[in-house]
């Protein structure tokens, strides 16, 4: 009945707007039309429900509609973005993208020729090294912030906060100015290469990971630390043997979220990894490509095939990050709880479809599953 009312209200509001804007006046454009129609619909639906079910139900329906509309408004750009990249990238994506580089490919060749293997390898190496650098540092900083009583905690926390808010291009610039410019002449390790990119990524990754781990450490109950200390343990041993294992799934989630964020960073790589059209598997020497640089390179070019290549790279990067987020969700789920959750089917009374009332039934009639341990 609600749906009928809502449909009727929608139809009448659209019809009313059409009458006003297309028949009586010169119209206000499609956006204004639907905006006005939406608010007219809200009013119509509210009044119709008020008349039918009373004030309480009318407010409830109004709020339901408002909440649903808000969700749709947020969801539409997101879904649109994903579909747009899919539509643009999928035609240019072939299996060869994962096995070939841009070696010998000229701009006039079709988008499916060549591939982005060099970019995938570069992204994995750069982000992997960045994780190796920032996970231990971030974990230790989080432990310092959450498990010690040092007076330096406040300044360090402010510093970490400031670092996590720093524009990522600045971190690339920092590595460029402090390492590449003064040292590249004498040592190829400090030239344009993947390792420099990893350092630049670490600068932004460390605070991200640190903040995330600090949050999960704070969730470890204080009672566990007390229990460990009461057994005659040192603080360091409690952190290592009790707090970190308890928070391990949270730490893993923090690490994967850090990777997922850094895998999409472009700005820190511009003057560190620099980008390279061919395969360079050695992150410590020579310019290296990465997926964001790959996208950045091709999407700017005027040729349709190049732009399509860029979208193929964007699609691969998006799927990669989606996979990482999915892994983070699976790792972050509390496994002990998930295993225990077993629902007992409540026997519903056949006539009403509702659970039987408790009165007059001392023993709840639960249909137990036949086997105990499935």
């Amino acid at each position, binding site marked *: 009945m609600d749906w009928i009312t809502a449909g009727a209200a929608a139809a009448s509001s659209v019809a009313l707007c059409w009458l006003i804007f297309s028949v009586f006046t010169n119209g206000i454009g499609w956006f204004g039309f639907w905006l006005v129609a939406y608010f007219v619909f809200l009013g119509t639906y509210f009044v119709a429900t008020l008349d039918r079910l009373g004030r309480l139900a009318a407010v409830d329906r109004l709020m339901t509609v408002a909440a649903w509309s808000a969700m749709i408004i947020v969801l539409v750009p997101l879904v649109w973005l994903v579909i747009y990249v899919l539509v643009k990238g999928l035609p240019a994506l072939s299996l060869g993208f994962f096995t070939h580089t841009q070696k010998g490919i000229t701009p006039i060749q079709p988008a499916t020729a060549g591939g982005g293997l060099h970019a995938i390898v570069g992204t994995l190496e750069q982000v992997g090294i960045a994780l190796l650098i920032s996970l231990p540092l971030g974990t230790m900083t989080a432990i310092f912030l959450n498990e010690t009583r040092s007076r330096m905690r406040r300044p360090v926390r402010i510093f970490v906060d400031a670092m996590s808010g720093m524009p990522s291009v600045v971190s690339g610039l920092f590595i460029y100015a402090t390492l590449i410019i003064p040292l590249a002449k004498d040592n190829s390790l400090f030239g344009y290469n993947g390792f420099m990119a990893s350092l630049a990524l670490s600068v932004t990754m460390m605070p991200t990971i640190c903040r995330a781990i600090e949050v999960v450490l704070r969730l470890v109950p204080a009672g*566990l630390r007390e*229990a*460990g200390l009461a057994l005659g343990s040192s603080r360091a041993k409690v952190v290592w043997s009790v707090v970190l294992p308890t928070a391990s799934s949270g730490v893993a989630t923090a690490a994967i979220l850090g990777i997922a964020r850094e895998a999409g960073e472009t700005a820190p790589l511009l003057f560190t990894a620099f980008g390279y059209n061919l395969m360079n598997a050695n992150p410590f020497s020579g310019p290296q490509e990465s997926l964001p640089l790959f996208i950045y390179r091709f999407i700017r070019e005027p040729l349709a095939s190049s732009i399509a290549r860029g979208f193929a790279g964007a699609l691969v990067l998006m799927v990669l990050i989606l996979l990482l987020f999915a892994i983070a969700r699976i790792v972050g789920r509390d496994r002990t709880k998930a295993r225990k959750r077993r629902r007992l089917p409540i026997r519903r009374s056949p006539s009403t479809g509702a659970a039987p009332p408790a009165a007059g039934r001392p023993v709840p009639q639960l249909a137990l599953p036949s086997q105990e341990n499935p």
Partner: protein
Amino acid sequence: MTEIYVGPSDRGAVDGHGPATAEVPAVPDPPRPTKEPPVLIGGPPPGAAILDAQDACAWFGDHLVLEGVSLVMPAGEVTALIGPSGCGKSTFLRLLNRMHELVPGAAMDGQILLDGDDIYGAAMRPQQVRARIGMVFQKPNPFPAMSIKDNVLAGLKLSRIKCSDKDALVEQSLMRASLWKEVKDRLDQPGGGLSGGQQQRLCIARSLAVAPNVLLMDEPCSALDPTSTRRVEETIEELRGEVTIVIVTHNMQQAHRVSDRCAFFLAEENEPGYVVEQGFTQKMFEDPDDPRTLDYVQGRFG
């Protein structure tokens, strides 16, 4: 002041450093005749110990919460600390194994003697004190990331005590906490999957595994149902004589049932807590010297 315990070879010799430990036998007395009693290496010296608080005071910041408590907790006996909420019982208990100092801004004065040695003395490290004086908390807190077995052995791992036979120690500790029968088939499952009462007994087993001289219990049954409470009380009964037990409880019947001695704490509004009366439990409950004690144990206030 000598070091407290160094190694297996001179354990007997080290025990003789205080006047009260002179009678403690050098060979550990196994709590329950098992086939091969597990031997702990590097743990606390064997046997129960006397705890003697002399004029203990405690502060949180500038706020004096406990004033001039002098109380002897004899070796192997059960001492109950009773009194209304907020009168400093738990604070006093936490003074006894140096957990009090973990609270930021906390301070103390006076002496706590463990077999004659001041646990706040210069030669004592808090870790040593806490290994000798175990603690069971109000809320069961098994380590969720560890299995039942690892929970029992956590104390060994955390304070670097070696054991000759870990499986036997797990069995012995769980037996003493009367939990063995319920969990012997699922020692590898997480400790968090047990019921509240079982978790609390697991925590008791965890504390007992390092063979402490004293066991402090901070309202161990306040979160438990009557059946689990009875099991914990049975455990306390079995430990009598082997370990010195100090138990904080709000349950008068429980204090009456389990304890040999009682200390009644009281605090006026915004005044520090103090001991009104102490003595044998029977006398405290039947014929106390102070009328306030009689009122409290008979449930007229508090």
